């Protein structure tokens, strides 16, 4: 149980939240707060074991609700703190030579960052190329390349340049940078209620009003019947009836939902976007990188000239031994996957650089390289093969070897081509079960696109897609009332990202793309979209399930409290005391205690979210109604009965 230390740490924060101004944010909990105060007055002026016990447990109810919220917020704070540590006080060197503090940068400032320096603010690279360590933000240790122009120009403040020199144009004001937004987000400082949360709060308030009326009107009926009730008992009844369970956990559920997203390295600009993710009808997925590995899997070795197959395979394997990129690993796999021998380990790995555009190994006198076709001088035969692979939509990788005399020789070509990622078919089937249609977007010609679409099992595809086609598709879907989600990274994706209901920008993408979308995936993993949808759904389901549970609980509470209140005037009503609770006091107190404890018991569920398995709406509803509806009816009968067995032992109660 990870919640235990969390609970203790959250206690001071929970006590602070007893402030009525804070309680006013939740109408349900405010009623409990006011009720606690009222009963406390009676406990002070007219003390009895029963009254004091009820007052204490009513305060516990409020406290437990605060605790749930504090625990959820505490988790976010921990993340925010680690983020804050990344916010070093960087010094910015402007192009004109001035040196200013990172906090004084303005949008449009041009700053120079060299190897070993921290990028002072969010911006786009406008000059140069560099490797950047983004682990502070993404947690991913491998450095990434950032270069001017193209779709990999965005740099984030707080990251470190490892090599080379770049000029960055600042695109955000200090205090509004990516890291700042991220901190605000995980701390829940800017948390606003989402549309569904507001609607649910209205429903919960309505239920509270109904029960308030029912309990207030009960007193005159009781007086009429000759069994006037004490304010303590009526307040206890009211608190037991109003939906305290969901009222107490509602904000924790919302914070935790956002937190789950952050844990998966996704940042949303608003809770609204997370909720919208649960409503998505159509998913636009880029083929490359999302559905397929991209042209990144070795599928064939093609020798050139006199080179034998074995020689090429052996050379390709050697060149990739220390290459940790997906391409490198796939070459090793295709070459047989044999690990490096002791001798081979002595070789010196030559990493890929943006300038050489090749990588390889120097082993003794041998020097083997593999890289982009443009980095080598090719024979006509080799050129033909390269062109053919390119025409077929694949990527050619040239393998060459330098002998001791320095004469280079092209051994052959590795074909990297599109392979559908494993498990995609199953995921799309799951999505279909959830009612979500997937559309694959690709620049390929319709024939190639169709083949891959069929292999991957998507519902539809858009071939030879230009950015404006994507936009048109989104508009068309939205006109039919559907909600569309997509991922994108390029500047030309920005309009479509903005148009989509859920636009997830890749962290590797341009600032424009990140600005346009309403979420950013730090891992730059386009399949993350599927998880985002699930988190959105889980958030709503957790709210719905706990509301149902909360309301279903009331049945048992009636059976506990009504006989306790009125069996004295109508002995026949004691027949409703089916739990055989010891005394009226023990019955009422047990119900109040159960009502408080159930909040604590459900905090882990609220934080983790209700288990979600993709299935049809009917199956989901049936399952949740059974567990949380029927379970909500049965659980309190057992719980109150058990608590009563203990409570009846207290002198003055039992």
């Amino acid at each position: 149980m990870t919640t235990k230390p969390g609970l203790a740490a959250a206690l001071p924060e929970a006590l602070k939240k007893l402030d009525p101004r804070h309680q006013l944010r939740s109408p349900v909990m405010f009623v409990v707060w006011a009720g606690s105060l009222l009963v406390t007055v009676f406990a002070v002026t007219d003390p009895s074991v029963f009254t004091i016990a009820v007052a204490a447990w009513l305060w516990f109810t409020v406290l437990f609700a605060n605790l749930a919220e504090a625990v959820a917020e505490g988790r976010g704070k921990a993340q925010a703190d680690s983020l804050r540590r990344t916010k070093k006080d960087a010094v910015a060197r402007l192009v004109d030579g001035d040196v200013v503090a990172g906090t004084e940068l303005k949008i449009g400032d041009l700053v120079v960052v060299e190897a070993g320096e921290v990028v002072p603010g969010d911006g786009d690279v406008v000059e140069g190329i560099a490797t950047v360590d983004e682990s502070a933000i993404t947690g991913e240790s491998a450095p990434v390349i950032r270069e001017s122009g193209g779709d990999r120009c965005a740099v984030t403040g707080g990251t470190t340049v490892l090599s080379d020199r770049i000029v960055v144009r600042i695109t955000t004001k200090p205090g509004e940078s990516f890291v700042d937004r991220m901190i605000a987000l995980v701390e829940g400082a800017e948390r606003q209620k989402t549309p569904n949360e507001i609607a649910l709060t209205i429903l919960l308030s309505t239920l509270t009003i109904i029960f308030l009326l029912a309990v207030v009107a009960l007193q005159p009926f009781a007086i009429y019947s000759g069994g006037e009730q004490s304010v303590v008992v009526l307040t206890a009844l009211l608190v037991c009836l109003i939906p305290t369970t969901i009222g107490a956990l509602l904000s924790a559920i919302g914070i935790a939902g956002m937190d789950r997203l952050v844990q998966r390295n996704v940042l949303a600009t608003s809770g609204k976007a997370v909720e919208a993710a649960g409503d998505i009808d159509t998913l636009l997925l880029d083929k490359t990188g999302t559905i397929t590995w991209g042209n990144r899997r070795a599928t064939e070795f093609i020798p050139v000239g006199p080179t034998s197959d074995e020689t090429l395979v052996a050379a390709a394997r050697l060149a990739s031994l220390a290459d940790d990129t997906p391409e490198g690993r796939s070459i090793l796999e295709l070459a047989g996957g044999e690990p490096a021998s002791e001798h081979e380990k002595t070789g010196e790995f030559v990493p890929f650089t943006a300038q050489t555009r090749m990588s390889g190994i120097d082993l003794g006198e041998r020097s083997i390289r593999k890289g982009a076709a443009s980095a080598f001088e090719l024979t006509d035969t080799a050129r033909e093969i390269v062109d053919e692979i390119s025409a077929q939509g694949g990527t050619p990788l040239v393998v060459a070897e330098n002998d001791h005399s320095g004469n280079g020789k092209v051994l052959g070509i590795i074909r990297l081509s599109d392979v559908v990622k494993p498990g995609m078919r199953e995921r799309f089937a799951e999505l279909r079960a959830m009612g979500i249609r997937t559309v694959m977007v690709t620049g390929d010609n319709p024939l190639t696109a169709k083949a891959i679409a069929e292999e991957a099992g998507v519902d539809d595809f858009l071939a030879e897609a230009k950015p404006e086609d994507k936009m048109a598709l989104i508009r068309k879907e939205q006109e039919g009332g559907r909600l569309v989600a997509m991922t994108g990274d390029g500047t030309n994706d920005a309009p479509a990202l903005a148009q989509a209901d859920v636009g997830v920008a890749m962290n590797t993408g341009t600032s424009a793309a990140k600005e346009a979308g309403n979420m950013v995936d730090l891992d730059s993993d386009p399949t993350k979209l599927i998880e985002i949808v699930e988190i959105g759904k889980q958030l709503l389901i957790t709210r719905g399930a706990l509301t149902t549970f909360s309301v279903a609980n009331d049945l048992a509470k009636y059976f506990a409290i009504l006989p306790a209140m009125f069996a004295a005037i109508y002995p026949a009503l004691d027949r409703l005391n089916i739990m055989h609770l010891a005394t009226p006091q023990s019955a009422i107190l047990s119900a109040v205690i159960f009502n408080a404890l159930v909040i604590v018991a459900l905090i882990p569920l609220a934080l983790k979210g209700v288990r979600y398995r993709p299935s049809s709406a009917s199956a989901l509803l049936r399952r949740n109604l059974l567990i949380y509806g029927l379970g909500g009816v049965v659980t309190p009968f057992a719980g109150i009965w058990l608590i009563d067995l203990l409570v009846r032992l207290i002198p003055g109660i039992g």
Partner: protein
Amino acid sequence: MSPLVAGLLQTGILLTALAVVYRPLGDYMARVFTAKGHLKAERAIYRFARINPDAEQKWSTYAYGVLGFSFVGIVFLYVVQRVQSLLPFGFDRGDIGPGMAFNTAISFVANTNWQSYVPEAVMGHAVQMIGLTVQNFVSAAVGLAVAIALVRGFVRHQTDRLGNFWVDLVRGTLRILLPIAFIGAIVLIAFGVTMSLKSGVDVDGQVVANAPVASQEVIKELGTNGGGVLNANSAHPFENPGEWTNLIEIFLILVIPVALTRTFGRLAGDRKQGYVLLSVMGVIWTAMLAVIWAAEANGIRPLEGKELRFGIPGSALFANATTGTSTGAVNSLHDSYTGLGGGAALLNMLFGEMTPGGVGTGLYSILVMAIIAMFLAGLMVGRTPEYLGKKLGRKEVTAAAVSILAMPTVLLIGAGIAAVLPSTQGALNNPGEHGLSEILYAYASASNNNGSAFGGITVTNDWFQSSLGLCMLFGRFVPIVAVLALAGSLAAQKKVPVTAGTLPTTGPLFATLLTGSIVLVAALTFVPALALGPIAEALL
């Protein structure tokens, strides 16, 4: 024939008759509210009232229409009663006092027909015919219009127009209520219901009060009004002479609310959507019938307060139909029912009158409940809740909540105050738990616009006249305004397409969910109060 067999036979005949007219009547009503053309008589009315029948209204204009029309109706009814002595066919019954006139005016305009008076001693034929009967027609037509406006809210999209209240009102009256009432009255006369402009008839030297009964009896049931022209209501042999008229009257009570589910399915473009509502109404109605019937058959004095010519089944059927709709006509004394039987009749009203509910009101009430049920269900399947292709957001939930809150609010406040007023003790026939049942029943009846009287309580003092009057007023018009606002916000939305992720609202799962919601909402709200009344009584 044993009473059980006779009862089952009666129930069978009733259900068969309803099944036969279900489709044609439902489809006909759908056509009435979608037809482009106007009848000659309608054109004349529109010209006279200076209404442009082809101009559609926003929800607020529609609501102003309903409220304005009803307000004028209340004022007119009040004045007519207060100056009765100037009108013909008054039989020297004099002017009605202000408290009673206020209560009665609201009662008939709000489709409640709660009667705090003895008609044959107080109301002359003129007030009955130009006042009360007119409202029996138009108050039912108002309910119908509001229901249709809500359905339009679901069916239409991206518009702020909900139709024209005046057109819906006129069509509902002229094309639906009047023709059926005309035929029904003739049938009732054929079966022995009286129709006379005299004040009484000499029976063996004793003068028995009489009135133009048949013409009012038919709309009393058909419009789910319930206000009898004679004090004994449908227990009176002039209003309800025998088993056949009893069955016909029950049929008339149920026919429009039941057939409206078909109308709804037709207009919504999916008949199954209507059938599923019908099934929910039917399940609850049948269950409550079984409870009342069984409770009465096993009572200590089973026939106390019941007419021998109807027996237990005929009384139970009528009681269940009249409280399950917002009719409130009675053919037996509900006060004399067992704790359980009377409690079930009370619970029928506390469900919020939607099994099948009043003309129009039943349909819009159950649709509001469906919205609440689908909101929770929608969350539980992980999507923004929707129903019939419309999203259920803040506005929709608020409107539905206000609509549902109105009835329990006025009921519990009214009954709560009444329970502790010293004057109440003098108004009750019975002390203890049965007395509380009488109070609860009176306020449930008024707040739900049912109008049936449990009896056993004298409601003529100023407190009851005014508080019950206000219960009727708020119980009727707060939900109407909320429902029209709901219709407005639904109509403004885009239509959400049906996908595999959409929760189907036509199957048994939805029916169970909706049934559960109706029962649960009523139970959670009223169990504490019921515990001290009918529940305590039934457990004795």
